[in-house]
């Protein structure tokens, strides 16, 4: 059953890779403005869950519903359009384009959506400023620190004003202080814009920035809200 008021939800997800069952009847939901940490041991199915929720991977069974649309029923082109327009992504390694400057990287999703360069870069610069990394606007990813690069990646995820942000180990490559800074800025921006955040992490200090956590174990999702 889809919980009332949820923006993104999944019911009965199953996904196998060959003989390995990554998800086994997994349920999940997130509300607008809510940060949910997805935790669990390595290989438990955390990333597969995120990929299914984001429409990157099609589950073998079960449904993903986003804002009333059944993501699992949409053709590839429509799912891609939804991903570009409504979802933002932050990964462990920023995955910035090395040939582009930081502001061009942050503006990239808007440029791909057809926005003019000047307008796209003005919006990107706004987010670089918010994330305290505007000084690096004209530098290339190879010329900035890991913490700066990751903040540029967060700016890129936020630049389209997404309604859902998927963050897969966003601080995994950073030290404690830089990781904290990224989490503070990411969660503050998300709460301000009422974006939902699906935060995959194995670090409890990172999960402590969430509103609630779910545990993925052996492909099933346990909602910890009812545990206590």
């Amino acid at each position: 059953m889809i919980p009332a008021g949820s923006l993104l939800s999944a019911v009965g997800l199953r996904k196998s890779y060959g003989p390995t069952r990554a998800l086994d009847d997994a349920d999940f939901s997130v509300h607008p403005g809510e940060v949910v940490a997805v935790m669990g041991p390595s290989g438990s199915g955390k990333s597969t869950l995120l990929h299914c929720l984001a429409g990157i991977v099609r589950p073998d069974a079960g449904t993903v519903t986003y804002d009333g649309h059944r993501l699992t029923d949409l053709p590839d082109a429509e799912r891609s359009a939804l991903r570009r327009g409504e979802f933002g992504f932050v990964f462990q390694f920023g995955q910035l384009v090395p040939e582009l400057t930081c502001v061009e990287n942050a503006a990239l999703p808007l440029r791909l959506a057809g926005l003019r360069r000047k307008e796209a870069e003005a919006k990107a610069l706004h987010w670089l400023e918010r994330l305290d990394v505007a000084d690096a606007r004209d530098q290339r990813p190879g010329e900035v620190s890991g913490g700066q690069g990751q903040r540029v990646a967060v700016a890129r995820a936020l630049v389209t004003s997404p309604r859902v942000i998927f963050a897969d180990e966003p601080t995994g490559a950073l030290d404690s202080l830089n990781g904290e800074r990224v989490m503070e800025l990411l969660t503050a921006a998300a709460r301000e814009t009422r974006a939902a955040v699906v935060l995959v992490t194995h670090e409890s200090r990172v999960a402590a920035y969430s509103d609630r956590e779910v545990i993925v174990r052996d492909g099933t999702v346990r909602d910890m809200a009812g545990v206590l």
Partner: protein
Amino acid sequence: MSIGHTLLGLLESGPRHGYDLKRAFDEHFGHDRPLHYGQVYATMSRLLKNGLVEVDGIEQGGGPDRKRYAITEAGVTDVGQWLARPEKPEPYLQSTLYTKVVLALLTGRSAAGLLDAQRAEHLRLMRGLTERKRSGDLADQLICDHALFHLEADLRWLEVTAARLGRLAEAVRA
């Protein structure tokens, strides 16, 4: 935390009354658990008996709480030694949790559920500390960080134990 040493340390800057000491303690260290007046006076009596503080003056018309205390030379030495001595790392929580996990396995209850509940409780506390850090000053941030790192260590132990429950169950039932 040694309340005696902490109160002694607070006296190093100058003589204070008992109520003044309590106020200073609460302001600096008593965020979650303010000191009771009874604790202050019991501690000061002990320190007085051991020659680490002396009575510097008594206000007229008051009871025992009107005493003003001053630290002695021996008291200053004692605080210095305490500050220079590293604390013993105590596995205070693990022993209790370990006992509960083993008992759950022995009695056929859900040890995984117990660990999940503990993890949720730990994270609940970590959220509160993270929020306090977000809105607090540098002192708050450093104090909360210390607590967060310790809770994180406990959580790692919970994860590892959860991953080894099968083996642990075999061992305790053997």
